[in-house]
């Protein structure tokens, strides 16, 4: 971490909003996400306290921690929803996340699934995927947008992957909770992100759905980087390589699930309660 890059993404931050960041993310030093000394306070409460975390490209990382540990705030910082009071957040070597808007960060290649499934309830499943698809998202392009056959195939493939082909015409608001979770994951995939942030992706899913979700995430890791925030230990055990435990806004422990489970401090603050 001593060689933290200081090059700001002048190119991407000055580019017109909504444009695809050219060149993509530079992961030449293996890591795709660097968070260093991030501090965020809300009315004196330190949601994040000098949080330092590095995620390698292609990794599937699970983040756990008791309520209020700062998991969601960390995602807010990475996706531009919350600006840190201090510290730096880089996507790859060059893209400074603290300078970009939510839309620019999404374009740079970070996709986010919310804790509560967030889909466009008054649009059909098909339209939800269409809106999420990676393309020129500026107004003028959207006015003339027509789906070509490659794009239609892509939507069809994603519908199949998230097992919603039969529901393509259904309004997303009418889907079951688990189906909405899957639709949101499908929307993330349509964005073709390099880094996926998933906030409790299996909350409210049946056991079978959870199992299939775990399978899906394992196929996604490697090709892209996945960060999962989850409470379901069984689910974490089924997917995680490396687990990070957050506590009071900073990293308490990091390592394999077994190692973390046996850490005395972790047992004290989290697992042993």
């Amino acid at each position, binding site marked *: 971490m001593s060689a933290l890059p200081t090059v700001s993404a002048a190119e991407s931050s000055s580019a017109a909003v909504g444009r695809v960041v050219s060149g993509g993310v*530079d992961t030449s030093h293996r890591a795709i996400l660097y968070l260093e000394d991030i501090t965020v306070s809300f009315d004196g409460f330190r949601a994040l306290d000098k949080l330092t975390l590095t995620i390698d490209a292609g990794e599937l990382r699970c983040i756990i921690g008791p309520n209020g540990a700062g998991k969601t705030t960390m995602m807010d910082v990475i996706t531009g929803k919350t600006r840190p009071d201090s510290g730096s957040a880089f996507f790859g070597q060059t893209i400074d996340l603290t300078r970009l808007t*939510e839309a620019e960060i999404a374009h740079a290649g970070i996709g986010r699934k919310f804790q509560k499934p967030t889909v466009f309830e008054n*649009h059909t499943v098909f339209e939800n995927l269409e809106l999420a698809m990676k393309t020129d998202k500026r*107004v003028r392009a959207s006015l003339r947008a027509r789906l070509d056959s490659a794009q239609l195939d*892509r939507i069809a493939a994603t519908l199949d992957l998230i097992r919603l*082909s039969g529901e393509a015409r259904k309004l997303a608001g009418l889907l079951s909770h688990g189906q909405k979770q899957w639709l949101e994951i499908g929307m993330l995939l349509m964005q073709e992100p390099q880094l996926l942030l998933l906030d409790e992706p299996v909350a409210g899913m049946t056991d079978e759905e959870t199992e299939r979700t775990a399978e899906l995430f394992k196929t996604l890791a490697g*090709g892209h980087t996945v960060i999962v925030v989850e409470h379901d230990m069984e689910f974490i055990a089924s997917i995680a390589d490396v687990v990070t435990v957050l506590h009071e806004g900073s990293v308490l422990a990091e390592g394999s699930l077994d190692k973390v489970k046996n850490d005395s401090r972790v047992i004290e603050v989290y697992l042993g309660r």
Partner: protein
Amino acid sequence: MNQAQVIEIPAMPAVRLPAGLGTPPALFSVKGWAALLAFVLSVSVLVPVLFIIVPQDNSFHLSAYFVTLVGKIMCYCVVALAMNLIWGYAGILSLGHGVFFALGGYAFGMYLMRMIGREGQYQSDLPDFMVFLDWKAYPWYWSFTEHFWYALLLVVLVPGVLAFVFGFFAFRSRIKGVYFAIITQALTFAFMLLFFRNDTGFGGNNGFTDFKRILDFRIAEPATRATLFALTGIYLAAVLVLTRAIVRSKVGRILTAIRDSENRLMFSGYNPLWYKLSVWTLSAVLCGIAGALYVPQVGIINPSEMSPANSIEIAIWVAVGGRGTLLGPVLGAALVNGAKSFFTQSFPEYWLFFLGLLFILVTLFLPKGVIGIVEMLRRNRA
């Protein structure tokens, strides 16, 4: 540089989409186009004939009162469509749309005032109200307003630029919902106070009136009135088609997505600012043009058009008709204004009570407005 791999959807056998998905549906059905054509023909041929050619004692004759009233209501219908675009689809409630309508009206009114020439009370080159203020020349911002084309330009630019600048700062600061509605109320109120002042140079609380000529045609002539009426009808039909085209495009789906879940849209890589700003500015311009058509037909424009209550009424038309539907706003504007002209003639003191009652009833029982009833009846029959 070692580029990270773009995520590929795992390989799988080719999957077909259910038929018909992804191909945009036709703008209107054949029936819809036919209805639209019938409407355009009746405003541009049928009404002029019944108004000008059919003699007054014939029971088919249309009175000047009727033509003016319907012409005025059609202007309001356009305002309702413009309001629906921003409120019904993008979910941004504006309670200041009257200001754009009035500014379009004032911009064109300046031209109409110039065309009075020396036919005013004081037989001066200046409008009567300027003579009254003892002004010797037109203020600078009246320059070139004697040119018809320049006036048309102002009709589009004044509401457009105001909406763009106001919208840019409001949307960039992410002002939403009730806060945005209150600021738009303040905007129209501020303009009303400004225009009430005699020194502003727009006739104070009397506004502009006593118009004589438009181009070289006398405004009181039936043929001129019929032409203005026909233009208004054609404009209404065009705005209807434009609204439909926008709503049916991907932009329309993005606008409703802003309404329903702006966060998800932002994290999907869209910047809502430009979508809101575009449709907001377009909506203002559509209102401005409607105002410009309204003024020569009604024969007067004054600052009361900018009163906060007027702008609230626009929202009521849309709510009564059915927000977020294509025809709802047109229906709402026509129904409420039809009722208004009936009430204000027969029971003037009860109109505001009726309007308030209507709004409460619609909010409580008809979330989709009058169009909602029509849809329900149709579904029950099917």
